[in-house]
C-alpha cells in the first residue's frame, strides 16, 4: 500500500528540492551561487553517465572527454571566430552537443565491443587520448595555458551576471533531467535496463544489444558536450585539467554516491562532490581525507548510493514489522 504512493512522493520531493535550489541560491552569497552553478553543470554530466552506468550497466571511465570536447569547441569558437557570444550562443549549445555525440560515436566503435573491466580500460584510454591532445596540441588548444574565454554572451540577457547565468544553467539542468527521465522510461530505456540485467537474454529475444548500447553511449556523449559548453562559460577558462582522469572518476563517484539508476542520484552526488572539492577545500586542509573517505565508505557500505537509503529504511522497517507480526501470530492465543 505504502509503496504505491512512493513514486509520487519521490517526485514531489524532487520538485520541492529543485524549487528550493532555484529560489534560495540567488540569495546565498556570491561564492555559493558560483558553486551551485558548477554543481548543476556536473549534475548534467553525472546524469549522462548514469544512463550508461545505472541503466545500461556500462561503467565508463572517460566521460570527461565529452565535457572537454564541448568546452574546447566553445572556447575555440569564442576566441578564434568570435562566435557564440551573442544570440549565436544557442547555436554553440547545439554544436557542443553534436561534437560530444560525434566523439562518442567514434569512441563507441572501439568501446562497445567490450564489457566490464575491459570497458573500463578502453574508456579510460580514450579519455586519456582527449587529454593528451588537449595538452600537447598547443596551436589549437593552447596546451597547458588553456584558453581564456571572453566575457559571457549577451543577447538581450546579460549572461555575465552570475545570477542570470545560474538561472540559465538551472534551466538546462531541468530540461536535461526531464529529457533523460523520459528516455529511461521509454521502451528504449527499458530495454537498456534489460541489457544491464541480462544481455544474453535480450539478444535471444531479438534485440540488437550492440546498437542499443551504442546509441546510449552517443546520447550520454551529447549531454556531456552540453555540460562542456556550460562549463566553458561558467569558468571562463578551459584547460587540459578539465579533462584529466580525475574528472571522469569524479563523475563515476557522483553517480555511485547518489545512486546508480536513479538519475537524480547523480545530481545529488554532483552537489556533494563539488561541495567537497570547491568549498570544503577552502575551509580545512585535510579535505582530501573526507573525499577519499566518502569514496571508500560509499563503496563499502552504501552500494546503492544515497538514494537507496529511504528504501533501506523502509525495507528494514518492513522487515521489523513483519517480524513483529510473526511474533504476534506466534504469541497470540488460539
Amino acid at each position, binding site marked *: 500500500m505504502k509503496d504505491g504512493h512512493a513514486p509520487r512522493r519521490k517526485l514531489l520531493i524532487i520538485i520541492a528540492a529543485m524549487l528550493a535550489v532555484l529560489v534560495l541560491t540567488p540569495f546565498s*552569497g*556570491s*561564492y555559493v551561487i*558560483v558553486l551551485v552553478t558548477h554543481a548543476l553543470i556536473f549534475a548534467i554530466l553525472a546524469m549522462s553517465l548514469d544512463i550508461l552506468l545505472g541503466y545500461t550497466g556500462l561503467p565508463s571511465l572517460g566521460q570527461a572527454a565529452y565535457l572537454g570536447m564541448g568546452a574546447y569547441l566553445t572556447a575555440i569558437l569564442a576566441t578564434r571566430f568570435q562566435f557564440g557570444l551573442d544570440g549565436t550562443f544557442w547555436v554553440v549549445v547545439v554544436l557542443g552537443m553534436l561534437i560530444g555525440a560525434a566523439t562518442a560515436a567514434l569512441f563507441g566503435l572501439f568501446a562497445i565491443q567490450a564489457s566490464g573491466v575491459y570497458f573500463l580500460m578502453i574508456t579510460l584510454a580514450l579519455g586519456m587520448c582527449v587529454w593528451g591532445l588537449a595538452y*600537447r596540441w*598547443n596551436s589549437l588548444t593552447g*596546451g*597547458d*595555458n*588553456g584558453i*581564456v574565454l571572453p*566575457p559571457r554572451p549577451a543577447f538581450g540577457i546579460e549572461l*555575465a551576471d552570475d545570477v542570470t547565468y545560474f538561472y540559465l544553467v538551472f534551466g538546462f539542468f531541468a530540461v536535461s533531467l526531464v529529457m533523460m527521465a523520459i528516455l529511461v522510461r521509454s521502451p528504449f530505456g527499458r530495454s537498456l535496463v534489460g541489457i544491464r540485467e541480462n544481455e544474453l537474454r535480450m539478444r535471444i529475444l531479438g534485440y540488437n544489444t550492440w546498437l542499443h548500447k551504442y546509441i546510449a553511449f552517443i546520447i550520454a556523449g551529447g549531454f556531456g558536450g552540453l555540460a562542456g559548453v556550460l562549463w566553458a562559460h561558467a*569558468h*571562463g*577558462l578551459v*584547460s587540459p*585539467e*578539465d579533462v584529466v582522469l580525475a574528472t571522469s572518476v569524479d563523475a563515476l563517484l557522483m553517480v555511485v554516491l547518489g545512486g546508480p539508476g536513479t538519475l537524480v542520484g547523480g545530481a545529488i552526488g554532483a552537489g556533494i562532490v563539488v561541495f567537497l572539492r*570547491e568549498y570544503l577545500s*577552502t575551509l580545512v586542509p585535510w579535505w582530501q581525507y573526507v573525499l577519499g573517505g566518502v569514496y571508500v565508505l560509499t563503496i563499502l557500505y552504501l552500494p546503492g548510493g544515497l538514494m537507496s537509503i529511504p528504501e533501506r529504511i523502509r525495507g528494514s522497517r518492513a522487515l521489523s514489522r513483519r517480524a513483529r507480526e510473526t511474533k504476534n501470530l506466534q504469541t497470540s492465543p488460539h
Partner: protein
Amino acid sequence: MSSMILRRLNWGLMAGIVAAGLGLSSYAGAAQELRIGFIAPLTGPFSQVGKDMVNGFQMYLDEVGSDFAGAKVTFIVEDEEAKPPVAVRKAEKLIRQDKVQLFAGGLLASTGYALAPVSTRLKTVYVVSTPAADDLTQRDAAKYPYIVRTGWTSSQPSHPFGEWACQQGFKRIVAVGADFAFGHEVVGGFQKAFESCGGRIIQKIWPPLGTIDFGPYIPTIKKDADAIFTLMAGPMSLQFPKQLASAGIRLPVLGGGTSYDEFVLPSMGDEVIGHISALQYSAALDTPKNDAFVKKYREKYGKVPSYYSEGNYTAAQMIHEVMKKTKGKWPGTEQFVKLLSSVQLETPRGPVRIDEMKNPVHNVYIRIVRKKKEHGYDKDELWNSVVKTYPNVGQFWKYPKEEFLKQPVYSRDYPPCKYCE
C-alpha cells in the same frame, strides 16, 4: 505625567545622539581592515617557489606588524597547485567569499593570463607580483584596468642580455626553453636583441613544462654552436644542467634568470659554475639594503631569498606605500591602481618605479654562478655574482613603444627562426 514621558524621551534622545556620536567617531578612528588575498602554489612541483613567494610577502608584513599606515592587514593565502584553473577558482573564492580588496601572486605566466580577466570581471585589484606574461602590460593592457605589475615581464631582462651576449662574441646559439608562454617570451626577447646585434639563434628546442627527463632533447642539440641559451622553471631548472653535464656537453651556457635563481641554486652542484643569466635580482647583490634583506630572510627561513621572495616582499612594501598616502583607508579600486602606479621605491633589487603601462622599470643584472663567500658568510657557496648592471630597464628596452607593440607577442614562432639549420 506627560512631562515625565517627555523628559524620558529627551534623555533617550540625548543618549541616542551621544551614542551615535561616539559610534561615528569610533568608526572614523577604528582600524580599517585591508584584506589581501594571495595565490601561490603550495603543493606540487612548484611548491618551493610558492613558499618563497609567501615568505617574502609575509616577512614584510611581520616587519611592520601587519599594520599598513593604520590599516590592519589580513593576509589570506590559497594554494593554486601551479594550475591556472585552480588559481582562477581560488581567486573567485577570495573575492566572493573572503571579500578581499586586492589579491596578489600567481606564479606561472599562464596563471597570470588566467587571473587578469578575473580581476576585470570582478572589478578587483590584482597586484601582479610574479607572473611575467608580457602582454598583461603590453598588447592586452587595456583589457585589464585593475592590474598593476610590480614584478617584471619575461622579456625584460632578455633584451639587454641578448645585446650583452653578442658583445661577448657569441655568434651561434641554440635555445632550449620550457614550452609555455614564459619560456617563449624569455627566449624571444633574447633572440630579438641578440639577432639585432648580429648574432644568430640556430636552433630552438621546446621541452614541455614539467619535463624532468631531457633524454629526448639533449642529443638533438647542435654540436657546433657557440653556446646554449636555456630557460628552465621549477624542477626543470635542477635537472637540465645535471643531465647536460652527464651527456658530456661542454658548451658555455647562458640562461634566463629562473634557470639559476636562488630558489634552486643551493640544491645545484658544481655543474652550473660559470653559467650566466640575467634577472632584476640576485641574492649576491652587494648593496646595504640587499645585504640586510638576505641576512634577515636567511635567518628567518633558513635559506637565501630568491627573486620570488624579493618580488613579493617588494610588492608588499609598495602596497604599504599606497596605504601611507591614503592614511590607512582603502581608496577604492580605481584610485588604488592610480596610486600604486605612481610609487617609486628603493628596494632590495634596487630602485623601482612603475611605467605608464603599469609595469616596473628597474635594474637588470648580468650574473655568473660562482662558488664563493658572500655577505660575510664563512662558507663557499654558489651565488649569482653580478658582473654587469643595466640601469633603468623598462619592458620595451631601447625599442620605441609603438613599434614594439606592433610586433606580435613573443611566441614559439616569433621571432621566426630565420637562421635555424
